[in-house]
């Protein structure tokens, strides 16, 4: 199905509309009197119905029609946007979603939802729904001037419209048709008499002709009516037409001001574009190398120009793929609403930093882990209202989602103000699962990290919400698959905080190219704090405990040539690249620093993805391959090494 297929476009549109409707309903739950919200929800339902009918989604259109009708009544002041009405339409969302996706949706479920909807409207309703009006039979006679057809008037659609009003009996009136010899074929000489039985008011009949009424003759007569005063002069009716309903333009959809045009682009095209840009960067870096070795100044000029352009293109691509994280956060409002109902707890979602942007792919991959962690917080972290009050806390539990950019990473935190993590229970569970010995001594941080170990579960009962076997270990792996990291802190009685650190971009980063023995490696520049020299004397002196004195701070360092088993002798003047993750730093001793390198990170096959030291590989200008170092892992390794050496001495 090509992207220009309206049905494909409709499917996406339907999802967007359903989301908008849902957000509007959730807002309406808090502000039931807000007319703009009512209009916005109505409009969404109206469009969903209309477009659905256009593309064959008849079940969806029929179902949505009822929701639209209910909101139309609210719009007209005939019913209230009660909490029950909002809940009823919210409950219908999943059913509508299923219909919009073309999935099977239970008819019984649909009927139950509609029944609930009607009950909600009646309960909050002002005027009772008008009883079905009795049907009346009309005789309609109309004819056109001879030149009507030439002027573009077409009687057939008009007859069709009359037919839509009710049962029709149509008869052509041929009394004006001249003999064949005198007939001008383009002339309209026919008239029509239609006997129509309908429940619609007479104005509906006039409406059919409203655009042609100036050029025709029309008579509408009620047959066997009680009232003799048949409305025969259409002109009179039209003057009385409800012009008065001065419809004020519905306000702009709330907050979202439409600034500037935007274009929808399928995500696959962005990915392709990203790949092309990646390849361009590689080729450009080869060109730079070639130009550097050439004496031709023109070649060097062009090469520099292309280097600049490639860098700009790359930066633009980064931005193009960025999407505000608020989009993701909004999806969770519904989740919290449902979780609150399911757990019976009072839960409020607080969000911060919605405008922080992340790569589109990353946002998609974060959705499931975040859902899992929110469910965890709601299910295990937060206490019930009574428990909270007894503990002196406010009855409403809060789950806070926040995002902020820190350097080349985005930090996303999920905070709850619940009961915190019970260390004793974690320990017991870990021992039971065989993860640690019963008498093992663990730092608090390490104990908490056990929660992310496969085979661990703190749930005493597997609840409906979070016990799907998805597990925190899967969450951790997903985050690491994004080259991110997961940290957790928790205070008993006060709550827990899970912090996700995600790199801003997946694919292209600025790197520092270094040489260790005869191999080259890339260190992500964003993690590099500084580079210092390691003199031979310092090198010798520090074999006992490998520390650098950096402006009076002791920084552990790792000799990469030892780590990588290089075997040969080190260069006389090595360099130490100091890298950092959060608060922790480590120095990496290398033989030579070769310079900056814009790195298109290629992911590694499963054979090598297991090697934690590296987060990927890159192709250099000369076609060779350099492994990209995983800084957090090396930092952790450095800390462990230092701890071990300290314990040994």
């Amino acid at each position, binding site marked *: 199905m090509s992207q220009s297929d309206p049905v494909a476009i409709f499917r996406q549109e339907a999802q967007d509309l359903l989301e908008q409707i849902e957000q509007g309903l959730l807002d309406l739950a808090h502000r039931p009197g807000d007319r703009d919200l009512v209009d916005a929800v109505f*409009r969404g339902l109206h469009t969903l119905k*209309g477009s659905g009918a*256009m593309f064959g989604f008849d079940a969806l259109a029929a179902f949505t029609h009822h929701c639209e009708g209910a909101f139309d009544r609210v719009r007209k002041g005939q019913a209230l946007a009660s909490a029950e009405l909002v809940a009823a339409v919210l409950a219908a969302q999943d059913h509508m979603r299923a219909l919009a996706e073309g999935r099977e949706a239970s008819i019984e479920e649909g009927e139950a939802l509609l029944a609930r909807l009607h009950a909600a409207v009646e309960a909050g309703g002002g005027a009772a729904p008008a009883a079905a009006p009795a049907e009346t039979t009309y005789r309609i006679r109309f004819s056109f001037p001879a030149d009507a057809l030439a002027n573009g008037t077409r009687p057939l659609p008009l007859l069709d419209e009359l037919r839509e009003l009710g049962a029709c009996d149509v008869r052509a009136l041929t009394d004006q048709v001249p003999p064949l010899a005198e007939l001008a074929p383009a002339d309209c000489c026919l008239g029509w008499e239609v006997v129509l039985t309908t429940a619609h008011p007479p104005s509906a009949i006039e*409406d059919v002709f409203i*655009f042609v009424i100036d050029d025709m003759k029309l008579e509408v007569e009620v047959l066997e009516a009680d009232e003799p005063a048949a409305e025969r002069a259409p002109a009179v009716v039209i003057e009385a037409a409800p012009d008065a309903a001065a419809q004020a333009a*519905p306000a*702009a959809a709330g907050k979202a001001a*439409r600034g500037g045009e935007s274009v929808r682009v399928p995500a696959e095209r962005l990915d392709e574009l990203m790949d092309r840009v990646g390849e361009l960067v590689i080729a450009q870096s080869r060109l730079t190398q070639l130009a550097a070795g050439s004496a031709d100044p023109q070649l060097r000029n062009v090469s520099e120009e292309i280097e600049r352009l490639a860098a700009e293109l790359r930066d633009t691509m980064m931005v193009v793929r960025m999407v505000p994280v608020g989009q993701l956060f909004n999806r969770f409002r519904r989740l919290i609403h449902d979780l609150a109902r399911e757990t019976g707890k009072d839960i409020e979602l607080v969000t911060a930093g919605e405008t922080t942007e992340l790569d589109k792919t990353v946002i998609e991959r974060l959705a499931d882990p975040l859902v899992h962690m929110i469910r965890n917080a709601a299910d295990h972290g937060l206490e019930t209202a009574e428990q909270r009050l007894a503990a002196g806390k406010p009855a409403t539990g809060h789950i806070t989602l926040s995002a902020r950019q820190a350097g080349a990473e985005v930090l996303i935190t999920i905070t709850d103000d619940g009961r915190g993590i019970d260390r004793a229970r974690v320990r017991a569970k870990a021992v039971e699962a065989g993860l640690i010995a019963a008498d093992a001594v663990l730092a608090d941080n390490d104990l908490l990290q056990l929660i992310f170990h496969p085979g661990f579960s703190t749930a005493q009962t597997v609840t409906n919400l979070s016990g799907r076997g998805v597990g925190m270990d899967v969450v951790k792996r997903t985050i690491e698959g994004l080259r991110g990291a997961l940290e957790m802190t928790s205070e008993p009685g006060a709550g827990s905080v899970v912090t996700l650190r995600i790199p801003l971009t997946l694919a292209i980063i600025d790197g520092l190219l270094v040489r260790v023995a005869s191999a080259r490696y890339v260190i992500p520049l964003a993690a590099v704090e500084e580079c210092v020299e390691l003199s031979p004397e310092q090198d010798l002196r520090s074999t006992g405990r490998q520390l650098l004195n950096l402006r009076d701070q002791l920084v552990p360092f790792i000799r990469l040539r030892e780590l990588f088993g290089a075997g040969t002798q080190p260069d006389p003047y090595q360099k130490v690249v100091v890298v950092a993750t959060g608060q922790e730093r480590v120095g990496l001793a290398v033989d030579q620093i070769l310079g900056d390198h814009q790195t298109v990170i290629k992911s590694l096959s499963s054979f090598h993805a297991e090697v934690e030291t590296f987060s990927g590989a890159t192709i250099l200008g000369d076609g060779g391959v350099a492994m990209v170092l995983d800084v957090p892992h090396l930092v952790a390794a450095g800390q462990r090494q230092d701890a071990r050496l300290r314990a040994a001495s």
Partner: protein
Amino acid sequence: MASVLTVDDSPSIRQAIKIALGAAGHEVVEAGDGAEGVAKANSGAFSLIITDLNMPVMDGLTMIRTLRSQPSYAGVPILFLTTESDDGIKAEAKAAGATGWVTKPFQPDQLVRIVSKVLAA
């Protein structure tokens, strides 16, 4: 053959109109709401405008009235899209200056015929 502006907040409907009229040789430009419709209308010269009525930012009736008040569009045919349950809207639309209507849902060939008729008039 003709330059047509389609104004609708539903991208799938705009695409359906674009394909149907495009196949008939017309050039179709899209706008997503009434305000954008006015802007596009004024930056081009269209022979026909097809508009939805229910749109955010600026609805169809307001857009029609706005365009009708301009000499450039006082006489250009404007069709509006309506569903069966839009009671009473035709009178209002006529008062605002609409030339005719198209009922949703419509078949592509129905649309093409209506457009041809309107353009020929």
